[in-house]
């Protein structure tokens, strides 16, 4: 079945450093979504990418969809302690199922 891998699994950064997580699919995607889960919280939708090569920005966050629509990245510029959490990519699988990547846990050291 379809697999979605995220790297890295964990990332510790100093506050102010940049952070990037990558999401890689074994199959071509129609779209991809990104979610953030704070410690003890629930996943919260960040953004959806649909077009090949699409780039979207939300303040310090930059999201990119690969040209082949098989991978995506989330980049955070100048991390802050409020960025702590686990970032998941989500993709449609088959007709209806929606699955998530393995997640990247970000820890920001003040």
């Amino acid at each position: 079945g379809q697999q979605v891998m995220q790297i890295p699994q964990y990332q510790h950064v100093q506050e102010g450093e940049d952070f990037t997580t990558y999401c890689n699919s074994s199959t071509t995607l129609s779209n991809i979504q990104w979610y953030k889960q704070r410690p003890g919280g629930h996943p919260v939708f960040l953004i959806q990418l649909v077009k090949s090569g699409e780039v979207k920005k939300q303040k310090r966050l930059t999201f990119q969809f690969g040209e082949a629509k098989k991978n995506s990245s989330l980049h955070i510029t100048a991390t802050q302690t409020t960025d702590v959490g686990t970032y998941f990519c989500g993709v449609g699988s088959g007709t209806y199922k929606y699955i998530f990547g393995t997640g990247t846990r970000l820890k920001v050291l003040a």
Partner: protein
Amino acid sequence: EAGVTQFPSHSVIEKGQTVTLRCDPISGHDNLYWYRRVMGKEIKFLLHFVKESKQDESGMPNNRFLAERTGGTYSTLKVQPAELEDSGVYFCASTRQVNTEAFFGQGTRLTVV
């Protein structure tokens, strides 16, 4: 607009007991998903309802898990009998359409001892 609500927020049960989790999706959202996250690992898909119909239950671990969505409104997920490996956080999510923004509930933290 009320969000997705889950009940209970926490449940501690003994091995062999039965537990029923409930999820109330956002009104008007036909798609309802159940997921499980174990020990901070990936969010694992369990199953997907469209209204009252199970569209995909390929992620259900075994026949000790039973999900229902009678009337296409709220859903329940029953675990009977519970085993130690069933511990984790069970999330419910709903979407208006397939492949649109998913709204998650706060989750039910299940601990089987």
